[in-house]
């Protein structure tokens, strides 16, 4: 089960038509350090960015294979998909570079190397350790599947570790680049690495990407806990027969709960195979110390609390910077899916505003998270998707500006909540212009 890190089909001979030596600086930006792996038509390098010295992985893919195979449209589509996948257990794609002959994918570098080494060093993993990685794998899978993205080539070789020892799944959403989807979009090519391939792929009918990924997860979980692959044979025909019949034997040390989960994952019938939802209910999956491995918030997403507390006050230039004419991000956005912002000025107490937003959110079963120093709140739907952000700024001693930003990520429920609850509340605030204390000059 051992192949090049981070790479695709490793059964074919490595393409030697790659002449990017280590030490070369790609596009003036990435200094190649060493070769990490070689695949059928790709090479993966460890590199560092010249200016920030940040470590990255650069995957160089031969373009002729991709383009001649008719995958060009898929490459663009998949890059767009990858751009939207952000999960702490998925290798992030930073940027893509290209020449006439090659495409370079610049990705997060998994400093902890391959999970394979962990297993190889110990022979096999204890069930608790395997569960730790399996939960992270399923969490990553859930994130992608809910966005309609399937891996289709899950195997131990695609599971990497970061510097903290957390799992990073690589090559998500890049199946066209790695040569697995046919140009017609139908998934009936024999893809995936033979030992991890699901039986329904072998019969060459169309298949469900989600089910196929779960089968591969079963093979991975088996390999982690057994120390060897469930289906293995030097003869590919024999191997395929074993997979097709679902012929494998549990080693004696496996717990019965784990056996139950594995039989449900390695169910040859995709219709009755376990779903991600069912995995989250599974006994073995939920055993051990912590039931769910919470997804950590990335460092870059942490908003550092500002030194001053309470509500930020606005000066004249802050007001000006609200102008949509200064927001160049509109140039980059799809006109059909842009977020919107509305602001009102009112004389309501800032704390009172946030409390009323929280009350409305509670009615609508929306989660409110206070931001920064309490002057703002993030609203999230039941599915964890961002609905909008409310912020309150002090304009003068009496007046505040309430800003509501709507996010397109909130989907239909978010839009409904915005329309029925938040906007009416905003208009209510707008009407509250009378200053409660004896303001003698506050006729606005």
């Amino acid at each position: 089960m051992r192949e090049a890190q981070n790479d695709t089909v490793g059964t074919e001979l490595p393409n030697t038509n790659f002449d990017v030596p280590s030490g070369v600086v790609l596009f003036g930006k990435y200094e190649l350090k060493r070769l990490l792996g070689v695949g059928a038509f790709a090479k993966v390098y460890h590199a560092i960015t010249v200016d920030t010295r940040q470590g990255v992985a650069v995957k160089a893919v031969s373009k002729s294979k991709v383009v001649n195979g008719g995958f060009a449209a898929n490459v663009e589509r998949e890059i767009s998909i990858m751009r939207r996948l952000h999960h702490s257990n998925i290798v992030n794609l930073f940027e893509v570079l290209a020449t006439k002959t090659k495409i370079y994918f610049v990705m997060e570098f998994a400093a902890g190397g391959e999970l394979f080494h962990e297993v190889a060093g110990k022979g096999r993993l204890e069930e608790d350790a395997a569960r730790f990685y399996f939960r992270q794998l399923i969490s990553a899978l859930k994130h992608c599947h809910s966005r309609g993205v399937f891996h289709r080539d899950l195997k131990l070789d695609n599971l990497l570790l970061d510097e903290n020892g957390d799992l990073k799944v690589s090559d998500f959403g890049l199946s066209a680049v790695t040569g697995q989807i046919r140009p017609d979009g139908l998934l009936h090519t024999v893809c995936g690495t033979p030992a991890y391939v699901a039986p329904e792929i072998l019969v060459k009918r169309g298949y469900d990407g989600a089910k196929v990924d779960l089968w591969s997860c079963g093979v991975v979980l088996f390999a982690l806990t057994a120390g060897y692959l469930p289906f293995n044979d030097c003869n590919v025909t024999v191997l395929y027969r074993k997979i097709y019949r679902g012929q494998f034997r549990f080693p004696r040390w496996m717990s019965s709960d784990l056996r139950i989960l594995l039989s449900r994952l390695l169910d040859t019938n995709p219709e009755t195979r376990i779903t991600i939802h069912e995995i989250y209910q599974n006994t073995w999956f939920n055993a051990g110390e912590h039931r769910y491995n919470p997804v950590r918030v990335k460092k870059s997403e942490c908003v550092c609390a500002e030194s001053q507390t309470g509500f930020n006050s606005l000066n004249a230039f802050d007001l000006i910077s609200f102008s949509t004419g200064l927001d160049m991000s509109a140039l980059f956005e799809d006109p059909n899916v842009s977020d919107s912002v509305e602001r009102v000025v009112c004389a309501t107490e800032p704390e009172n505003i946030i409390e009323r937003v929280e009350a409305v959110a509670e009615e609508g079963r929306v989660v409110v998270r206070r931001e920064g120093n309490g002057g703002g709140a993030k609203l999230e739907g039941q599915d964890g998707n961002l609905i909008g952000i409310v912020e309150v700024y002090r304009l003068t001693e009496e007046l505040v500006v309430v800003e509501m930003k709507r996010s397109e990520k909130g989907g239909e429920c978010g839009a409904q909540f915005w329309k029925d609850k938040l906007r009416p509340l905003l208009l209510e605030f707008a009407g509250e212009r009378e200053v409660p204390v004896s303001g003698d000059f506050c006729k606005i």
Partner: protein
Amino acid sequence: MGCCCSTSKRTGTPGYEEPTVLASQTPCEYHDPSLNVTVSEVEALHELYKKLSNSIIEDNLIHREEFQLALFRNKNKKNLFADRIFDLFDLKRNGVIEFGEFVRSLGVFHPNAPLEDKITFAFRLYDLRQTGFIERGELKEMVLALLHESDLELSDDMIESIVDKTFSDADINGDGKIDQDEWKAFVSKHPSLIKNMTLPYLKDITLAFPSFVVRTEIEESDM
């Protein structure tokens, strides 16, 4: 590394060429190593530029109406600030934003661009009459424009007091106008003022407009 088209006759300042010549050139000819962007990023920007510059008049040049259309989804919407940005982007002052100008100007908005450049750009933006100072009258004019644009109503007294307060904080030497140094000091106290000068989109622009990966003509040897 180098530009793919080392033979191209670049004339020092990007955007110096005649527009007709410009339209026929390949995007990578506008790649300038000093801009700190890769050729691929320039090519991805070109994909965006093609969209913006042909939305109304198909001539590969961004006209003011096309700029307004992209910002406001409305080609006729006038906006003081958008006008200022357009004028600053239009380095040659010929009424259109050419690709070279587009790349060079957006460079300031890159998350990795020097803070100094962003502060200077904002200063020039707010120096409406280009006197080298932001004057009180200009500040008030801009506040009024913003209030009008966003349907926010404030009494004149209120506006005066907001402008006064800001001016007294920023105009350190009290000469009634904000100069470059005063602006720098004011921005360092209020860093959120130049938030608009950074576009996170530029960080992964190659992922946002990936169609160049198939089309690019850049030779491997140039890398």
